[in-house]
């Protein structure tokens, strides 16, 4: 029942979107038909939706780790870029290696690049008390300038210099790093499988390992956790590092799975990431901050974004509408969480009334409430 609220929220946002379409002189019916068609209308469209969802999923899964450790990671944009840069650099450095080695290595490089870019704010917070919102915002800026510098300088395609056109892009990456296409005639690539696998791995990590338990415990109550001997500082660093790593992996997949098989910049982070660093956070919330839940959530969100682009092309409204719509969806979805919580609270109260032991679980927790909970509520049952 609770999972319908985000869907209802999306629909509510779309209603506002419909009003905006009307005001712009476009037909909402035509627009939304285009939206659904653009996201689901055929194998190519579905593939585009999935490809759009992949970075959202990876970022979102990373967020589920960070949130559990009570850490907000809005550095996703920069971490995606860093991952892409390291993966690209590796691929350019080892052009003759076979795919079976180079591709995993390249993806691993992306993981590392993003991990570093997450570790820095993590360490800054843990050891210097520098708030992670500040450091991640600043590092996003550093990342984009770094990307621009590298892509127009050391990493630029020599052909660009020769022809004098100076487009800030790399050479075509070795075909060994092309993510294999899974369904012919579409652009659905291996990245989808990797992302889902990553979600599964993180689920196992968070719920089935001691270390994962510690990370979740820190989020629920840092004071009690410290009392129990869990190093809160370390957990913060680890959480941001892992979250960054997943964003970095998303960056690597974006490059290796791109239409052009090169890394190219337009001068901004969003030009490369498509705001996945932000939208991925929403996907995570949509999925209940659960790695597995983030899978359908990012698919739906990806569908929304891809569909909205088709809406723009068909109705010819300014693409600024799509951005505004994106924002509306985010606000509505995030706001809908309260209804879900109320529902769960009601269910718990009822369970208490009827003495139903099994239903009396502690809140799975969309938001990891820390100091508000008295210690002793650490019993976290398995979330399905």
């Amino acid at each position: 029942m609770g999972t319908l609220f985000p869907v209802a929220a999306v629909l509510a946002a779309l209603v506002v979107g419909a009003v905006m379409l009307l005001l712009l002189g476009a037909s909402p019916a035509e627009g939304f038909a285009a939206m659904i068609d653009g996201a689901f209308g055929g194998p190519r469209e579905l593939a585009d939706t999935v490809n759009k969802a992949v970075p959202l999923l990876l970022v979102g899964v990373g967020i589920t780790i960070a949130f559990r450790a009570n850490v907000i990671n809005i550095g996703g944009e920069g971490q995606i870029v860093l991952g892409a840069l390291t993966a690209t650099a590796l691929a350019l450095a080892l052009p003759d290696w076979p795919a079976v080695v180079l591709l995993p290595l390249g993806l691993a490089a992306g993981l590392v690049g993003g991990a570093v870019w997450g570790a820095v704010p993590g360490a800054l917070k843990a050891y210097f008390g520098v708030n992670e919102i500040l450091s991640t915002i600043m590092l996003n800026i550093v990342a984009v300038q770094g990307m621009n510098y590298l892509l127009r300088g050391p990493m630029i395609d020599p052909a660009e210099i020769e022809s004098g056109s100076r487009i800030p892009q790399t050479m075509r990456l070795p075909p060994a790093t092309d993510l294999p296409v899974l369904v012919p005639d579409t652009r659905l690539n291996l990245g989808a499988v990797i992302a889902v696998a990553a979600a599964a791995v993180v689920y196992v990590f968070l719920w089935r390992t001691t270390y994962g338990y510690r990370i979740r415990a820190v989020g629920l109550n840092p004071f009690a956790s410290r009392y129990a001997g869990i190093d809160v500082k370390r957990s913060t660093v680890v959480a941001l590092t892992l979250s960054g790593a997943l964003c970095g992996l998303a960056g690597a997949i974006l490059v290796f799975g791109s239409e052009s098989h090169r890394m190219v910049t337009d001068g901004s982070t969003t030009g490369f990431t498509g705001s996945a660093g932000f939208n991925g956070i929403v996907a995570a919330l949509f999925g209940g901050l659960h790695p597995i839940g983030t899978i359908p959530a990012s698919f739906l969100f990806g569908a929304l974004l891809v569909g909205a682009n088709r809406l723009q092309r068909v109705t010819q409204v300014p693409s600024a509408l799509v951005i505004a719509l994106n924002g509306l969806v985010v606000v509505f979805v995030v706001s809908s969480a309260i209804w879900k919580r109320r529902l769960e609270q009601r269910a718990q109260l009822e369970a208490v009334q009827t003495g139903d032991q099994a239903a009396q679980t502690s809140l799975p927790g969309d938001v990891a409430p820390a100091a508000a909970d008295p210690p002793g509520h650490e019993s976290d049952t398995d979330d399905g």
Partner: protein
Amino acid sequence: MGEFFTSAVLVSTVASGLRLSTSYLFAAIGETFGQRSGVLNLGVDGIMLLGAFGAYYTVLNGGGLWLGMVVAITVGLVMGLAMAFTSVTLQAEQGISGIGFYLFGLGLSDLLFQKLVGTPLPIRGFPELRIPLLADLPVVGEMLFSHSIVVYAAFLLVPVGAFVLNRTTLGLKIRSVGENPEAADTLGVSVAGVRYFTVMTGSALAGLGGAALATELGIFQQNLTAGQGFIAVALVYFGAWRPVGVMAGSLLYGLVASVVLQLKTLGIIPRSASELAAMLPAVLTILALVVAVQRERQPAALTKPYERGA
């Protein structure tokens, strides 16, 4: 390098740095109020854009600068109301709802701009206001006292904000709501009321900051703020939630950016290093915080929605 250390260059660098700091400062002081009461608003950039467009459109259509400022403040209040409703009443996850507002503001401001204005025409901002006597001081006069009124207003907000936060009952309420909402509640303070107030005020200031930017630059454009709102939010953390600290952060950021521009113009920073130089304001801000090693704790209830009895 010697060329940089001439009086003329230094004066214009500092003056330029002050101007760059101005729009950060409006938004950051506003955000300080909100965060002090426990609410994080990451949508500042979007609200700045809407305020900027509101002011630009008003002035473009003959409404005058003051009306433009009023429009921007109103736009900010409306967005603040929405943000407060989302964060306080609906208790939505603040970091993310803020991003949603950002995207909404970014898109809507551009949409309105394309539909209502089309090809942009320039507008005239506030004239330079030389403060009598002080502006005639050598060096310092040009640097500090020959700016437009929006610059002075931004810096005036600092002592005003500090006064309100530290020496008024309102400020006490704000701080207590941010530190310990349960206690404040039992003492009869309306937690929601205070938070609505601070978020709306903060958003109004953000709108004003956007208007200041648009009128100073004399134009509007898609994504005019280019991320300044996010930097403003970051600066609140830098300033340890104190207006003076926030001002220090804004100045640091603005002055470093200004110095970089100056060094590029003089050729001291070669073109090959222009992106690396552009990183400097961000890097130095982080370093400054590392070096300063403040242990200032953030408001304990920051980003935590409050529900009585929860």
